[in-house]
């Protein structure tokens, strides 16, 4: 394949449509204070004026924490998170409702650290129905850190903010199958299951 052919193939792939959640339109119309359809009930919002709306633009991210929200579905990281609650699970909600009305669990930090680093864990697993991340940073909790699946391919991901240090971790596919990352240092736990190791704040 020539370079030109490959470029054309890349462009063709990038031009493929991307799924946007079916509730998206309703969320936008709700945010501007209008019904989603012309036949919808409810008061019409004031039309946009030359001077803009009086109220501030609603934040697309509302979190119980002061820093920008981040969820297990991956969202931009910013600031620092407050310390985790007792069970190590933080629930974050958005003022502009996401695809599910229910809140979504997010990974929790054991503690705040000034030099915390964001580390994205990615697993390519098209056959998986669910993927969990377990490791030293979440006490190997089997329900704490779920990866989100990127639509259109078999890529699962989650971002965790970790203080500098060395962490063992593994993926659990479909609730039962442990997977390690063969490209990293691999150890075995006390049950003989493979664990990978990541060093944060240093070279992986």
């Amino acid at each position, binding site marked *: 394949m020539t370079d030109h052919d490959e470029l054309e193939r890349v462009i063709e792939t990038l031009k493929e449509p991307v799924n946007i*959640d079916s509730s998206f339109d309703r969320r936008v*119309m709700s945010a501007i204070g209008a019904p989603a359809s012309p036949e919808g009930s409810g008061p019409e919002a004031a039309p946009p004026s030359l001077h803009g709306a009086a109220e501030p633009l609603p934040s697309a991210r509302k979190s119980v924490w002061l820093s920008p929200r981040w969820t297990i579905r991956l969202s931009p990281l910013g600031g620092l998170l407050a310390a985790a609650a007792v069970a190590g699970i933080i629930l974050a909600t958005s003022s502009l409702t996401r695809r599910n009305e229910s809140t979504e669990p997010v990974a929790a930090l054991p503690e705040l650290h000034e030099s915390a680093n964001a580390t994205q864990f990615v697993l390519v697993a098209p056959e998986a129905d669910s993927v969990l991340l377990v490791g030293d940073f979440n006490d190997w909790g089997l329900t704490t850190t779920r990866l989100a699946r990127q639509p259109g391919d078999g890529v699962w991901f989650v971002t965790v903010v970790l203080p500098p240090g060395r962490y063992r971790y593994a993926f659990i596919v479909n609730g039962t199958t442990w997977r390690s990352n063969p490209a990293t240092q691999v150890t075995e736990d006390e049950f003989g299951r493979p664990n990978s190791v990541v060093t944060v704040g240093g070279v992986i």
Partner: protein
Amino acid sequence: MKDENDDVLVRRVLAGETSAYAGLVERYRPHLGRYAFRMLGNQADAEDALQDTFIRGYRSLARCEPERFRSWLFGILVNRCRTYAAQRTKRQSVVTTDEWSVANSTRQQPVDDDGWRTAIGRALEELPAEQREAFLLKHVEDLSYEEMQELTGVRIPALKMRVFRAREALRRNLQENVVDRS
């Protein structure tokens, strides 16, 4: 609403019929959503940026020339995506390929297509944001360099250099990382 032109819908909204904005949202959600997703690399950020764009578009609609709604709204999106991309902290990426899962995929599409899409996504994400933006605007959105200059405020020679570098970087990345499953 589906058959009405943008300028008709815009004028209806400005006249007080806010619900007419739903027609514009429905019309441009797929196209703008694709750009946001390609630029930001994940659905959550893309939907946030897209939602933000439509809300800002509504709030400042009186400043829009109704006949130029499409390009005007797209300009807002490009700006929002730049802001969202800049706000992201630099992060490590620990990538694992579950070879077993990939090899046993029962999806109808051939495995190499999935790997190809993943490789493109990753290669695109590894580009500097300005190169990624220029490449998408030129080759995916099919804008002219003049349109890109108007949209981004960047001079044409710089845009051409960004597109060139993006193409070279993508080519190198894909040659190094695409798995040959033949």
